[in-house]
């Protein structure tokens, strides 16, 4: 069985209107740029997107928002996007805000086959509304459910033909978690190598979680907040 596809369009060919998609990345760091471009070209609509952020106006998930492809955004922070705000206020876009650690842990739960997890995040806040609260050892926790996403689309630094993935620095973020959580997981990598070239001790995402993989191209890797110090 061959997991390798030739490009993003092939990798996402069967994503239909109304699908639930996880997209890796934190801010613009480690986002699946090629697949986002392909989703925009394909014009698939009415998507539910699970991603920590929603990109900026002209990059990342922002490109999909411009084309009004997203019906619902499930994120922890969506602040950097004027078009997002416009659609939200006009009612075109629905947003569900989730604490960042809860978002990560609900991915983890899916990848580990755990139907629900307990976290104290959001206890006593509006996040707790409608959720079961449970006390363990004197502390309250919310029961949060594992995500159930049709697709996970992630970006790794290197990958091999078996689907094993290695991430670089903080571009790791949500990518390995979402890779585990998708019913179908698509990985785009900066460098695709033959099986056996990656050190098996250094794999971040074992290939069993990855269904399709391809070597991406033309990565822009835009920096959101360029901060430097004086030499």
């Amino acid at each position, binding site marked *: 069985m061959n997991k390798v596809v030739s490009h993003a369009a092939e990798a996402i060919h069967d994503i239909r209107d109304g699908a639930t998609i996880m997209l890796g990345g934190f801010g613009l760091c*480690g986002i699946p740029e090629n697949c986002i471009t392909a989703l925009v070209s394909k014009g698939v609509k009415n998507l539910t997107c699970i991603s920590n952020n929603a990109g900026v106006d002209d990059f990342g998930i922002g490109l999909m928002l411009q084309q009004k492809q997203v019906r619902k955004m499930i994120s*922890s922070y969506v*602040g950097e996007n004027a078009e997002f705000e416009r659609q939200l206020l006009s009612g075109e876009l629905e947003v569900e*805000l989730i604490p960042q*650690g809860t978002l990560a842990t609900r991915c983890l739960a899916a990848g580990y086959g755990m139907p629900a997890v307990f976290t104290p995040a*959001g206890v006593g806040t509006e996040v707790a509304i409608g959720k079961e609260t449970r006390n363990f050892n004197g502390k309250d926790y919310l029961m949060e459910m594992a995500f159930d996403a049709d697709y996970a689309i992630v970006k790794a630094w290197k990958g091999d033909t078996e689907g094993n993935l290695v991430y670089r620095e903080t571009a790791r973020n949500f990518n390995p*978690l979402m890779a585990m959580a998708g019913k179908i997981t698509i990985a785009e990598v900066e460098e695709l190598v033959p099986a056996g070239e990656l050190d098996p001790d250094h794999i*971040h995402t074992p290939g069993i979680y990855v269904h399709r993989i391809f070597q991406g191209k033309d990565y822009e890797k835009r*920096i959101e*907040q360029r901060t430097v110090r004086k030499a």
Partner: protein
Amino acid sequence: MALTKEQIAQRIARELRDGYYVNLGIGIPTLVANYIPKGINVVLQSENGLLGMGPFPFEGNEDPDLINAGKQTITTVPGSAFFDSALSFGMIRAGKVDLTVLGAMEVSEEGDIANWKIPGKMVKGMGGAMDLVASARNIIVAMVHSNPKGESKLLPKCTLPLTGLRCVKKIVSDLAVLDVTDQGFRLLERAPGVSVDEIRQKTAGKLIIEGEIPEMVF
């Protein structure tokens, strides 16, 4: 004189202990890294997946794969480690991070905190704030004592939507250092030249003043 942002950060830095793992929020908390006392070694955690955060890179050395939770380009120090977001919040939830410093719009005398949402304004999201306040063992809030209208932000009850319940342990404001106790805000120190009376006047929540309140020295 009310403390400057830098002085608030400087005062918070005195709470650091050798070997601490510390998470610094966006804004004033970030400045704390500039005032780590000599001889004290702390490791900075960035909740997007890094232990051992270093300063900003020199111009030309920015790496788009290497950012902090504020999405700023950063560097690492020797001995750093990268990990995914679940492990990052896992170590916070498990109490392995010794100190979390963050900003607040309001804190109640019971230690509730509100810092993510203002009704009527565009809501950007809580990011990792709810996880941090609910999970961290030791939370210091860096804030200004009053809002621009002169209203106290240290309240009997928060008026804004909560970020977390009964979690703030200490506040360093522009006017004072206060512990959050079962009985309310306990005044520990005052800013240079700021009177106990002024602090009393600007603290809407229950304030405990016992004995002489020392002035901070910078």
